């Protein structure tokens, strides 16, 4: 496949940062590692962004786009991406169609009267300009000093002062409705399975972790409280299993017949 569209330019901002190294160029070889192309595609916010890149890369003015050439380049990129079966948003294809339409219109004799309503070329140019302005503005907003990074509001402590600080009031029902909202959304958005284990197990999981805080280990037998009866034992046991499953604790036995102990899971990454 011909990829002469990729011309080297001096001042091209990096497309993306991969493993800390800037990716400035789309590889010029015929062979493109799919990963590189994926990075390339991800670097763009959509067809307008890609078009702007192609235009700026060749130092063209937006008002001065050689539509035929740009269309050719754009469509080539799209084809390469399709060939590589990269997931391509429908908008990219729509833009390809629009460019093709503009190109074909320009081949036809110009009919002034007809074009007064909407010249697709003018529409495209206007869109590119508007998008470019917003893109710049977004970059500038990103540079503004912001809370959490550059701005830290301060307060003086009032805990010594005898005052009743009124805090927001929450009804249990509000809390439940908020959670209902979450449940609905997770069902819609993803395959997140919120498991339905009894909350007493969850509560016990927290307690066990809390007890482990600052301790090397706890004996397995310490986790069971006699007075809680059979039910309590089951809850504790399930909590230990769940903690183990979630990788939060480890169950260890140094040698046969040694007492079973649990401890906070050790980082696998280290």
């Amino acid at each position: 496949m011909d990829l002469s569209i990729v011309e080297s330019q001096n001042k091209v901002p990096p497309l993306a940062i991969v493993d800390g190294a800037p990716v400035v160029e789309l590889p010029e070889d015929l062979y493109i590692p799919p990963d590189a192309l994926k990075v390339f595609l991800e670097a763009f916010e959509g067809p307008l962004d890609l078009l702007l890149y192609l235009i700026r890369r060749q130092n063209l003015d937006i008002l001065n786009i050689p539509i035929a050439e740009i269309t050719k380049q754009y469509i080539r990129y799209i084809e390469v991406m399709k060939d590589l079966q990269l997931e391509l948003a429908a908008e990219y294809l729509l833009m390809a169609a629009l460019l093709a339409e503009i190109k074909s219109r320009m081949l036809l004799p110009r009919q002034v009267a007809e074009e007064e309503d909407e010249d697709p070329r003018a529409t495209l140019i206007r869109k590119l300009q508007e998008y470019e302005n917003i893109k710049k503005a977004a970059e500038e907003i990103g540079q503004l000093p912001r809370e959490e990074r550059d701005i830290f509001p301060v307060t003086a402590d009032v805990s010594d002062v005898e005052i009743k600080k009124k805090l927001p009031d929450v009804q249990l029902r509000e809390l439940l409705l908020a959670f209902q909202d979450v449940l609905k959304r997770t069902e819609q958005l993803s395959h997140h399975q919120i498991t339905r284990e009894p909350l007493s197990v969850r509560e016990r999981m927290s307690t066990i972790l809390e007890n482990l805080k600052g301790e090397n280990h706890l004996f397995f037998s310490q986790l069971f409280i006699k007075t809680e009866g059979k039910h309590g034992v089951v809850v504790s046991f399930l909590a230990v299993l769940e903690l183990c499953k979630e990788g939060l604790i480890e169950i260890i036995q140094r040698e046969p017949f040694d007492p079973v102990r649990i401890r906070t899971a050790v980082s696998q990454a280290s």
Partner: protein
Amino acid sequence: MTLCESEQQLAKLPEEELIKVDMEIKQIVEAILFVANRPMTIRQVRQVFPELERPESGEIQKAVDAITEDYSSRSVELKLVASGYRFQVKEVMAPWVSRLFEEKPPKYSRALLETLAIIAYRQPVTRGDIEDIRGVSVSSTLMRTLLDREWVRVIGHKEIPGRPALYSTTKLFLDYFDLSSLNELPTLQEIEDLESSVISNSENSPAQEDNENQEATKKTIKVTDRQEATTTFQ
């Protein structure tokens, strides 16, 4: 420091001027602003005073100005943001102070910042408008993040089929970016009037455009380029 300064002022200023920066009011205003945990407007500060001893807004404002002055050489400052005055650490101190927090500040994606920019500059806008400008669909998660952070809110619905929500930015958005009004946002470049600059360029002379457009056009496009443009196109 304040006492010394006011002694100096005493020498300089006419007496009536001085009386207006009431020391007690100033102390109270300072305490309120330090404790509030959110930006406070002059009006809100004034409301804290009991009705019978409530100073005029002008007096509160004078106190605020005096406090701002007092802190000018310290590491914290009294700053006016969209929802009012708040004490904050000066920006130059950020590298030191941020070391106190284990978690890194959140990073925002280009998609999010662009969407935010469109809402800020073009408000009120529908999601359709945003998608139109960006040329891609806007994810629900992204809109949710903006609504969630309370940077953006729904201020109504457009009376077109589907009654899409109209979004605008909030004061919290401005507060977050340390701004006191939308006017303080970076200026958006004017978009040249295409009708007169490109399309009809082949027919009309640029002289007919109104002055503003010419100003805007001059910055970005050279006249020669434009003529080339029309040539290439045809």
